[in-house]
């Protein structure tokens, strides 16, 4: 067949059409929208319920934080990449740890050896934390620590000690600990949330971290509830928001149950969401999220401080629409997603790199992500006025529709006993599975179009992009390091302090573990040892063959 035989002249002659007019959440869009769809204008930006943004001046006052996730290999390598990115225009840190760290396993644990340093930086000791932040002034750059409880408590303890070595007071620290027990691991499946630590103690320890931060770190955000990892399974925007808000209510109630005031902690809770490629719907989603949250805080929990009603959201653009096929196409996609995040009024953005379908970002693709954000900020003009799409008939109508659907789904979850109950009964997981099968079905059928995958696919495509490579001896190095570390410290002191931790869990189960954890880390106990001690104290064992 000649190449010219493949030309589809009908596209022009018959007119090229979309397969349908539904959003990713299944909202059927109308031919056009007018005043009847949006009879009332929303209040101005900075005014309750903050649909148009939490600040009156939005990006005129300050741009969003360019916060690219980074972390791989050894803490030295990650420190090098962090410095590189800050030099290239990144304005906030977003530190990712490898899965072994996020599951409380040292690099020399038999289950960890193949995964050490791959999906984030390997980190197990106070010394590692010191290396990771070498040369980074912790009072001048805000840091997000991507880690879940109970390990978040250990990481927080290490971070506080590193700050102390830098002579930075806890009150001067700026940043966020993710600290969510359910959503940090991809999925989030029931298995991933319970295989390495029991769920209820993990949530208790998350609350310990939050309480400690509230009392000692007034500029620090105590939790960042992650809807992105839920969304990346293929659930839709409505499910993303309803699931994460239902979960957030559980955390709010657990802090209220400790006798804390809503206005003491609500201003310090944050969300981590994603932006898929359905441009209008994603913008509307972020606006709807702000409105729903503001009402929940004020109407349901009686918040009086307007800041308690602010939904602050960090975005990582979704990887789902990115393709391994024709990877350069992802540069355009990520730019569109980033634009939606900005038009939706986000507080920080990680633009996902075009090489996502192959490996972690290279220096080159990492910088391109930062540049993409800078082009949107400085060249496109969209930041010159707050919420430029506010009052658009379709945006306001979609915002209303998403709000309505989210509230209805939250009601369903509430009637089933709340998010945690639904998570434990695996109702959430069943919803996720149905959604991911449906997403795949739509891709197969062509209802969902992905350029390069089910449209304009090129068989035998030779991909020629630079792909990130780990150092070949990185894992061995880390395993050697941790063994040496354990051999070179005062073992008796470590033993004593771990026993103290164990006793505290047993004898004072409601007490806050942070002070003891700080002591434990300071005596050079490793993340894995501390995690094992906690597991034992809670009567839990990790099972594997």
């Amino acid at each position: 067949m000649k190449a010219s035989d493949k030309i589809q002249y009908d596209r022009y002659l018959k007119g090229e059409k979309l397969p349908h007019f539904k959003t990713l959440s299944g909202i059927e869009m109308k031919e056009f929208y007018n005043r009847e769809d949006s009879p009332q204008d929303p209040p101005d930006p900075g005014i309750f319920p903050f649909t148009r943004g939490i600040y009156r001046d939005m990006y005129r006052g300050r741009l969003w934080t360019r916060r690219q996730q980074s972390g791989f290999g050894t803490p030295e390598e990650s420190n090098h990449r962090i410095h590189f990115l800050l030099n290239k225009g990144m304005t906030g840190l977003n530190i990712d740890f490898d899965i072994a760290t996020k599951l409380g396993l040292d690099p020399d644990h038999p289950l960890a050896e193949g995964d050490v340093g791959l999906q984030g930086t390997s980190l197990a000791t106070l010394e590692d934390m010191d290396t990771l932040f070498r040369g980074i002034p912790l009072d001048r750059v805000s840091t997000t620590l991507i880690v879940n409880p109970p390990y978040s408590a250990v990481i927080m303890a290490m971070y506080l000690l590193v700050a102390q070595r830098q002579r930075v007071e806890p009150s001067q620290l700026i940043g966020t600990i993710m600290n969510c027990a359910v959503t940090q691991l991809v999925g989030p499946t029931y298995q991933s949330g319970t295989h390495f630590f029991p769920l209820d103690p993990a949530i208790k320890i998350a609350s310990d971290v939050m309480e400690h931060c509230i009392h000692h770190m007034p500029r620090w955000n105590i939790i960042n509830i992650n809807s992105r990892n839920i969304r990346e399974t293929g659930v839709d925007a409505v499910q993303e928001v309803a699931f994460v808000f239902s979960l957030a209510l559980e955390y709010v109630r657990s802090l209220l149950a400790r006798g804390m005031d809503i206005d003491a902690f609500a201003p310090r809770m944050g969300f981590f969401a994603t932006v898929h490629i359905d441009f209008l719907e994603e913008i509307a989603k972020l606006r709807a999220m702000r409105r729903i949250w503001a009402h929940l805080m004020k109407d349901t929990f009686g918040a009086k401080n307007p800041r308690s009603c602010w939904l602050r959201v960090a975005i990582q653009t979704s990887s789902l629409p990115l393709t391994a096929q024709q990877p350069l196409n992802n540069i355009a996609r990520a730019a569109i997603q980033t634009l939606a995040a900005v038009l939706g009024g986000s507080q920080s953005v990680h633009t996902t790199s075009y090489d996502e379908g192959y490996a972690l970002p290279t220096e080159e693709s990492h910088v391109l992500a930062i540049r993409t954000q800078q082009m949107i900020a400085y060249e496109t003009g969209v930041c010159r006025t707050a919420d430029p799409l506010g009052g658009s008939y379709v945006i306001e109508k979609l915002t209303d529709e998403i709000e309505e659907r989210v509230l209805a789904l939250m009601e369903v979850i509430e009637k089933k006993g709340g998010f945690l109950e639904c998570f434990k009964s695996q109702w959430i997981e069943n919803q996720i599975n149905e959604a991911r099968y449906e997403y795949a079905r739509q891709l197969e059928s062509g209802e969902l179009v992905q350029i390069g995958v089910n449209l304009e696919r090129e068989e035998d495509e030779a991909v020629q992009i630079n792909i990130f490579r780990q150092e070949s001896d990185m894992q061995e190095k880390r395993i050697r390091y941790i063994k040496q570390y354990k051999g070179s410290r005062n073992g008796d002191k470590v033993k004593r302090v771990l026993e103290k931790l164990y006793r505290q869990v047993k004898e004072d189960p409601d007490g806050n573990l942070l002070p003891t954890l700080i002591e434990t880390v300071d005596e050079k106990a490793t993340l894995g040892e501390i995690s094992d001690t906690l597991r034992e104290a809670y009567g839990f064992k990790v099972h594997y063959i």
Partner: protein
Amino acid sequence: MRGKKRVLIGKIGLDGHDNGIRIVSKWLADAGFEVVYLGLYNTPEGIVKAVVQENADLIGCSFLGGEHLFYCRKILHLLRQNGLEDKKLIVGGVIPPDDVQTLKEMGVSAVFTPGTMRDAIIQKVSELVEA
């Protein structure tokens, strides 16, 4: 003779990305294979043990964090050590192009990277279990 061909599917190591592997499991089950899904956090030793217990014809794993070479080498070694060379190993996930070649040279029967369509996977798996 057993009717349905039996496919053992599981995640090895600590990576929790299970979107693709769940979808592929469903596709294979819908296509008439008997699918045993082992979930997350399996070890190479555990998978090889399960192959014997379940009398599976083929193993499917996915890797999205760069751990594919490490674990595939281990699984293939254990299969050989236990006289199970006839059991095929297929792999899906985020695999750089150079490594696709390396995996195949190592003895992995098929590698499916993101965007592989359903029919291509079903056809390849059918060929492998019939062979």
